[in-house]
Structures are given as structure tokens and as C-alpha cells.
């Protein structure tokens, strides 16, 4: 079974931000998104985006705004009654509260159904539940309220009249009334039980309408796009991290958009100075991949994405102290898991930040180089960042442009030389670190070179 949305909700790449910005009307829709599993089949994914595109066309027409608000107001009343429906399908007779829930769902269904039929939307068809409403509204009031109405049977009406007039011993009458009510509930149950699957379908589809409206509106709100699908290479132009972009915006700063492309045939190696945004780029790539495989809008100007079986993100700041592993041991385990998935014939996306970056440079370089060589042999999408000089390997390389006139340029450009950038000292200096420390370090570097 694949990853569920709720499993990744609190991951470091920040998918919770996207989820929290989703303006859902019903809590049910949120629960269903959280329970949903990642899609790995490109056919499913493209179907999901086809639906999203349909809703996007719908929400983008300004004359639809009031209709959308009307739909959202109806969906606001949508409750998660899956347990009620399961109980009924398993043979238990519903009580008044459960019948009320079904009645109000059916009334929402009919209203939203009428609204949707006046639009171009074809991907969601709601069932006709008029007969269910008739069953639960025998007096034809069409109000969302419920009790065992007098209209269900004449003997019920009689006995209630007697009770309220106070002519007969009330305890006995109340008992008789409850027997009649139970009988009526049983009759309602029999008629409802054949409609439960339609009612369930209505519930799920109403939540889908809610979700798709919210996702479509999010495209505009966060500047997201609907991506195209690819089988060999994933490429983004103008990719950004929505959460970081918003933080920068509140500081009146501009986010630098990233262009990046990598293929299944060779790993992509990103080099660049510290603070160059390499880890953020990897996290954003993970975010985009999950958004893609859960059918959300993608934060980029253009995107073409390969669907993968599994996504691996290894960023050094995730120390797994709960399992008693040091940062190095945790990293080795993560990479090992990734490699065994790649060797198991799965198409994976592996995003590895500075492999073996916390150990000594000699062994670290060896481990990083070897990792690239192993990945090279597999059909996998992989992006690796490093500080090390990885020379004797031919793969695609990008470099963070780095410090320019005292300002960090986070853009990626094609790297020509294979040597690692020596900007650590310049950055430390620019940060105003202790001058004695930096000047001795410079001298040390000079000694080594000689």
C-alpha cells in the first residue's frame, strides 16, 4: 500500500502548508484527502488533473462566483456520515439522529446536483436521491429536520393525539407509541438499505466537488499550475517553494525561481556554496513530486513530471534520535533503503542532500562518488547535492550561481569545472565572523595548497 497523505503531512518539505491553504467547506473533504493514497499510475494522475482542469475552467469564470458560493454554502453542512452508512449496510436500524443525517445529506445532494447540472462539469455525476428525501419527508416540508412524522401512520397520529390530550394513562401510551415508532423505523430501514450505496457515492462525490473547487481556487491563490506528464525526464522552470515565497513576501523580498531538469538515465549533481539553497531545492522537489502524485497544483511556471513508485528525501537535518541513531547512521539507513528500492526494480525519485557530508572528506568523497555510480546504473530519477570534489564521474551537473556582488544568487547554472566551489570562507566573512578565525583559516588554506 502506498503512502497516505496524512503520513507525509508533517514532513520537512512542508506539504502541510499547501493543505492548510486549501479552503475546504466540509471537514469530511479534509479527512478524505488525508486518508487518500499516493497515485503511482500515470493514468490515474492524468485523470485527476483532467478533473482539476475542468474545475479550474469553472472557477475561473467570474460569472460562476455566486454559483460557487452557493455550492460551498451547501457543502458547509456536509457531515462525515460514513459510519452511519456502514452501520446501515451491516443491518442495523438507524435511529432519528442517523435518519436526520441521511436526510440532510440527500437534500444537499439534490441542491448541488441541480447546481452542477447547470455547468460544464462532467467529471462528477451525483446520484438522484429524490426518493430518499421523499421517504424521510413524508409531509413534504423540505426542511432539514427530522422525527418520526405523524404522516407515517394513522395509528401513530391517533396515539399522539391521545397522549397530548392527556386522556389516557401516559406511560402505557408512550410505550405503545415507541413500538409504532420502532416499526416505522424498520420500514424506513428496509427502503433505505437498497439505496445505501448510492447515498455513500453521493457523500464521497460531494466531498470531491468540495476538494476540486478548493484545489482549483488554490491554483490561482498560490500561483500553481497543472503539470504535463513525462516518462523520461522531470523538468521545472520557474519552480518555487510556496511557503518560503510567502515568508519572503511578508519580508518584502523576492523569491528566486529555479529551473531544473533531470532524467531517468543519469543522476543530477548539484554543487554550490553553503547557504545556496540546495537543501531547499531538494525539499521543494520532494514537495512538487508529492503534490503531483496527489493531484494538486504545482508551484512552477512550467512543469513536466515523471510519476514514480517511491520518493526518497534524505536531508541531513532529520536526526532520528528517537531510534537512537546518530545523524550519520540515520543517513546511511535512509540511503540504504533508497538503494534497495531502486534495485528492487521500482522507479524511484531519490533526493539526497550531501551524502556522507558529516564524515571525513576522504571517505565522504568516496561514499558520495560511489553512490552516484550505483545510481547511474539504475533507471532512476536522482538528484544529489555535495560539497565534495567529485571528479572522475560523468553526469549532469548544475551549480548554484552563488555570491554575486555580496548578494546570494540562488539560481542554478550548468557547471563546467568539476571542482567543488570554495566559497565557505567568503560567506563566513560576509556574515561577519570573527576575523582572526577567518584569516588563520585562509592562511591554513594557503599552506595546504603549497
Amino acid at each position, binding site marked *: 500500500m502506498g503512502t497516505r497523505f496524512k503520513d507525509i503531512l508533517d514532513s520537512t518539505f512542508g506539504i502541510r502548508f499547501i493543505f492548510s491553504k486549501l479552503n475546504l467547506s466540509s*471537514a469530511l473533504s479534509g479527512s478524505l484527502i488525508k486518508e487518500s493514497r499516493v497515485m503511482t499510475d500515470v493514468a490515474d494522475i492524468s485523470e485527476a488533473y483532467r478533473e482539476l482542469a475542468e474545475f479550474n475552467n469553472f472557477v475561473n469564470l467570474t460569472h460562476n462566483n455566486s454559483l460557487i458560493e452557493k455550492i460551498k454554502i451547501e457543502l458547509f453542512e456536509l*457531515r462525515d456520515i460514513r459510519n452511519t452508512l456502514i452501520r446501515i449496510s451491516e443491518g442495523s436500524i438507524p*435511529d*432519528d*439522529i442517523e435518519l*436526520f*443525517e441521511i436526510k440532510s445529506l440527500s437534500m444537499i445532494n439534490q441542491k448541488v446536483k441541480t447546481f452542477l447540472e447547470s455547468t460544464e462539469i462532467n467529471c462528477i455525476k451525483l446520484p438522484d436521491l429524490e426518493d430518499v428525501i421523499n421517504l424521510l419527508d413524508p409531509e413534504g416540508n423540505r426542511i*432539514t*429536520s*427530522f*422525527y418520526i412524522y405523524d404522516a407515517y401512520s394513522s395509528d401513530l397520529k391517533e396515539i*399522539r393525539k391521545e*397522549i*397530548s390530550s392527556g386522556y389516557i394513562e401516559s406511560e402505557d401510551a*408512550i410505550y405503545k*407509541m415507541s413500538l409504532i415508532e420502532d416499526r416505522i423505523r424498520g420500514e424506513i430501514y428496509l427502503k433505505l438499505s437498497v439505496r445505501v450505496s448510492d447515498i455513500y457515492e453521493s457523500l464521497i462525490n460531494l466531498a470531491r466537488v468540495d476538494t476540486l473547487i478548493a484545489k482549483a481556487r488554490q491554483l490561482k491563490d498560490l500561483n500553481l499550475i497543472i503539470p504535463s506528464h513525462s516518462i523520461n525526464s522531470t523538468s521545472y522552470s520557474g519552480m518555487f517553494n510556496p511557503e518560503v515565497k510567502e515568508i519572503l513576501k511578508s519580508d518584502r523580498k523576492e523569491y528566486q525561481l529555479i529551473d531544473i531538469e533531470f532524467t531517468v538515465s543519469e543522476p543530477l549533481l548539484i554543487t554550490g556554496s553553503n547557504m545556496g539553497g540546495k537543501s531547499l531545492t531538494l525539499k521543494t522537489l520532494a514537495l512538487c513530486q508529492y503534490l503531483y502524485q496527489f493531484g494538486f497544483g504545482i508551484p512552477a511556471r512550467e512543469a513536466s513530471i515523471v510519476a514514480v513508485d517511491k520518493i526518497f528525501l534524505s536531508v541531513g537535518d532529520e536526526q532520528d534520535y528517537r531510534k537512537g541513531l546518530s545523524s550519520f547512521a540515520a543517513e546511511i539507513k535512509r540511503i540504504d533503503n533508497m538503494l534497495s528500492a531502486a534495485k528492487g526494480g521500482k522507479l524511484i525519485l531519490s533526493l539526497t542532500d550531501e551524502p556522507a557530508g558529516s564524515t571525513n572528506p576522504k571517505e565522504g568523497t568516496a561514499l558520495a562518488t560511489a553512490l552516484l555510480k550505483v545510481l547511474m546504473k539504475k533507471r532512476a530519477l536522482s538528484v544529489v547535492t555535495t560539497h565534495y570534489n567529485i571528479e572522475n564521474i560523468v553526469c549532469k551537473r548544475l551549480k548554484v550561481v552563488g555570491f554575486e556582488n555580496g548578494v546570494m544568487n540562488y539560481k542554478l547554472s550548468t557547471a563546467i569545472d568539476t571542482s567543488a566551489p570554495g566559497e565557505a570562507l567568503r560567506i563566513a566573512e560576509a556574515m561577519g565572523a570573527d576575523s582572526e578565525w577567518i584569516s588563520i583559516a585562509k592562511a591554513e588554506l594557503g599552506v595546504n595548497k603549497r
Partner: protein
Amino acid sequence: MPFIEEILNYGTLSIAGLEKNTGKTESLNYILNRLTINSIRVGVTSTGVDGERIDQVTRTSKPEIFLKEGVVFTTSEKHYRERKILSELLDISDETTSLGRLVTAKALSGGKVMLSGPVSTASLKRWIISLKKRYNVDLCIIDGALSRLSLASPAVSEAMILATGASLSLSIREIVNKTAYAAELIGLPLSQITGRETLLDYEQGIWTIGRDGEVCGPIFESAFTMEKRSIFRIEDGGAIYLTGALTERFLKMISTDTNLTEKELIIKDFTRIFVTPALLRNYLKKGGKITVLQKTKLIALTVNPISPNGYTLDSNRLIDELYGRVNIPVYDIKKNGYKI
């Protein structure tokens, strides 16, 4: 017919007991029975989560509420299922309590039901608004709890009836003292500060308010974390706002500083005060000014002279002494033969 007419002047009424077994439910039943349901629409709920038929602590019986036809009521799913009343279900809310979701229904015949409603002040406010807007209820009645365990403050109502009695103490003097103190707290004046509604939304900390109503701070996260002799200055005409409890420690600290004693001290409502009567009165005598953001009017006291263990006090003496102290109508609903 005591105080019923007065009630009709208000849109919300809470009935609060100073202690368990002070006859709060009897008072509620009495009022519900006497309101002319035909002319006004009544909604009722309870903020207590303890809706058991038998009081779990004292094993005395806890009556259900009798509702007339037409009354709108809100209770938990559990108690709705156990109702002995013919009622039409109007709404199920998303808010849940330990007894399930909140259910709102209308009584279609007379009958009994156990009430257990909203458990927080915010949700109580939402309840009032929703009943008034959606079901055109004229009078919302809240069966409230005054214990510090209850998060839903009955101070959101416009008027209040306070139930007191022998379960507080077996000494009449003691009952009178405790009840008079509660009445004194309920009578604290409403703050005239600008932006009262926005202040209510603050949830934590101690804040200072400038002369023109600008809020600064929080100067402390809470009265529990502040330093013993913290220094803070407030301009003339400014005020101090406590979002949480007014504790002895805080009041002692500011009452020793004449510069601060002159400032208005604002709290959310009277239920936030946790200081002894002596300390509070001392502070007020010194010229201290304590105001509230939410004020309710105490319109009557009801007394239950029977203690949970069966001891009965002299009802007339209790009523006379209470009336002498608080100058608000006092009734013993059972004794005076008002049929329930």
C-alpha cells in the same frame, strides 16, 4: 409570580448554582414552566457536562428538565437518544463533547430531557447566536455552572439567576457571606474601554492598555510566570488587562504600588476572580478599580435550604438575611409552594 416578568426583558438568561445541589435545576424547571411559551420562543441548554440522573458525588437525585411544546433545546447525542419527549431534530453540530455531538431539537409535546450542551464560552456564544438567527428564539436560557471546572462562563448572558443554599455551608451566616461575595463580583462594573469586543478575543497574557485604547504587551505570559516584583509602567488613564484569572499574587503585587492601584484593572468576567473577599474589598477600598468586559445582571437569588445530607435550614431566616445583605429578590421556590 416572582421574577418571571423581569426575565422577559432579556434575550439571554443563565441560571447558575454556587455549588452542587443548590436547586438550580428546580429553578430552571420553575422558570420554564411559567414562561408563556405561546408568546415567546424559548431555547435552553446546559453548560454542565454532568448530566447524570443521579448525582455521582452525593447520590442525590438530579432531575431531568421538563420542556413544554415548542421549546428549542440543545443537548448531547447521548442524552438526545435517551430523551422522553417527542421532538423534531433540527440540527447536529460539528462540535463534540464527551457525550457526543451537540444536537438541537424542538419539543413537539411536553416531556423530559437531560441537558448537556456547549462546554466552552466561545461555543456557548455561538449557540446563542445560532438559536437567535436560525430559529428566531427570543429567550436563550443557559443552565450554567459556576465552578472553576467549567470553561463555559455564564457571564455571556444578559441576566442571571443565582442558586444558593445549604450545600454551601450549614451556617446561615456563612451562606450569606459567600453568596453576598458572589453577588458583589457579579456586580462589578462594565469597563468603558474602547474596543471591548476585540479585547475579548485575546486568549493569553497580561496586557497594558494606553489612554487611547492601544493594547501593548503581553507584559507577562500569565500571572503564574511573572516575576515577584516586576516593574511596568502605564501612562495616566491607561489600564491593565488580564485575559486569565485574577490571582491573589497579582492583586497583592499591584495593590502595594500606588502608581498601579490607580489604574483600571480589566478582567473578562466575574468568574475570573480567585481572591479572598478580604483582599478584594481591601483593594477596592484603597481606590482600586476592577471592571469586566462582559457583565450580566443578577436579577434574583433562589435558595435551597436542604443540604445534600438531609439537614434543613430555616428557609425564612435564610431568605431574610440574604435579602438584607444583597438587596435582590430571594426565593425559596419549593417552600413557597410554587408547583414545579
